């Protein structure tokens, strides 16, 4: 075995729904500790790409590796083990409407038969993390869109997954909540060494994720820093999807220098 540096790797992955080709021999990788920001217009297959990582869908051809394991031909039972390493924030939240916020967040631990005291501690910590302690007893239909999204994030973080997939976690939120969510992602990237794929349309998210970082100072406080001119973050890369192909892959500095008209329009 060679050393594996990739948390997620796609090798020549193709997928079509009928005649509608979504991905056409797409290859990319996400290194351990790296955040990959995925951009692309509506319907270009960003959510589909995340579903492939989880094994919720199978590619027509090509191979998908997660944490060094080739999951392409895994059956549902083998996939369950892989999925336990992954947290997924669904585009619409996908909260279980029959369960309260508490039970939603506790879901994964309940399935793993973790003792209830432990579950309670974890759930309250996660809800504090997304600033929703007050909503613990509410049902999903009593929450606003942004709150649902944050509960979805809390639920995805339970069990400390080393890989997190965010499907447009900031879409349709006010700038302050969106900023909070990006800061969460930064904390996970810089302090917990989580690898992630972050799907987003918003330029503000890209700016934050590509140019800021978090450190913990001597007294344990978190400090958000801007990379400035001296430093260049190498743990955040971009890819852009269009018509089934990756038309750009690289850092934000490289992207700003691209002269592809589609990317220019996307960034303006």
């Amino acid at each position, binding site marked *: 075995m060679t050393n594996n540096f990739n948390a997620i790797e796609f090798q020549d992955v193709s997928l079509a729904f009928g005649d509608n080709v979504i991905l056409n021999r797409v290859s990319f990788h996400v290194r351990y500790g790296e955040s990959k920001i995925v951009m692309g217009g509506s319907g270009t297959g960003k959510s589909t790409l995340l579903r492939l990582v989880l094994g919720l869908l199978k590619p027509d051809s090509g191979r998908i590796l997660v944490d060094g394991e080739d999951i392409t031909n895994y059956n549902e039972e083998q996939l369950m083990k892989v*999925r*336990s390493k*992954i947290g997924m924030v669904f585009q*619409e939240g*996908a909260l279980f409407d029959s369960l309260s916020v508490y039970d939603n967040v506790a879901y994964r631990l309940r399935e793993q038969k973790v003792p209830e005291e432990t579950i309670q501690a974890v759930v309250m910590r996660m809800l504090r993390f997304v600033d929703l302690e007050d909503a613990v007893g509410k049902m999903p239909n009593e929450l606003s869109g942004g709150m649902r999204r944050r509960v979805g994030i809390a639920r995805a973080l339970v069990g400390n997954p080393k890989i997190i997939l965010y499907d447009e976690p900031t879409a349709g939120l006010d700038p302050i909540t969106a900023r909070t969510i990006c800061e969460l992602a930064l904390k996970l990237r810089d302090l917990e060494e989580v690898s992630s794929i972050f799907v987003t349309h918003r330029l503000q998210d890209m700016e934050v994720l590509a140019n800021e970082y978090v450190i913990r100072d001597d007294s344990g406080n978190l400090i958000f820093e801007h990379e400035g001119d001296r430093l260049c973050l190498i743990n955040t890369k971009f890819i852009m999807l269009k018509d089934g192909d990756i038309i750009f892959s690289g850092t934000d500095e490289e992207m700003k220098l691209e002269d592809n008209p589609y990317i220019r329009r996307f960034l303006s």
Partner: protein
Amino acid sequence: MNLITRVLVEVQELTLLIWRVVRGLSRSPRYWSETVRQMDTLGFGSLAIILLTGTFTGMVLALNSANTLQKFGVQSVTGQLVATSLIRELGPVLTCLMLAGRVGSGIAAELGSMLVSEQIDAMRALGTDPIKKLVAPRIIALVAMAPILTVICDFVGVLGGLFVSITLLHQPSTVYMASARDAVDYNEIIGGLIKPTVFGFIIAIIGCYKGLSTTGGTVGVGRSTTQSVVVASIMVIAVDFLLSKLIISLLLEP
């Protein structure tokens, strides 16, 4: 041709679902507390409509049959006629048609909306097999509850017939009850319990299948719900014929 292919594909998918449920049941985790919850909501939740259905069916059976029987001077066998009709046929079929309407549609709607709102995907992403957590408990619950509800339906039906016999037909209750008791024998009851067991399975599996194969958002959920009721009801009636033939030749005509 196109229709035939589509039906064959659906049958294949349904068989696959059944196979996955069976395989799922042979391995842990099994969701027993979820199963008990489903027995409560699907089974006891249907008690009221089953009581009403049974009572009125028994009443109308007594009313109609007494009229005809009187012509032959054998009004005294009203009880037997009511009990036999209920146990053999009307109890199982009516109970399960009601269940197809109330429970089958509910299952299809619930699973369908979970599917279109990505809750099924979220469940899989969080490490749960929806076949084990959602489908198997509903099937077990209905297979267990449909015969129990059928027995209740038969029982209140006979009582409904008794009520009509006493109040409208002015028969002594002892005549009716003695005649009804004649109808009840071991083989009849076994036959009358096989049917709802099979029907319960059919209703649950079709509800789950239709729910989980929903496409096209909320409109699709409505479509799946309707289809599950229609398909399950027709299946109940068609399979009832086959089972009746089988039961008559195996149990009732030795």
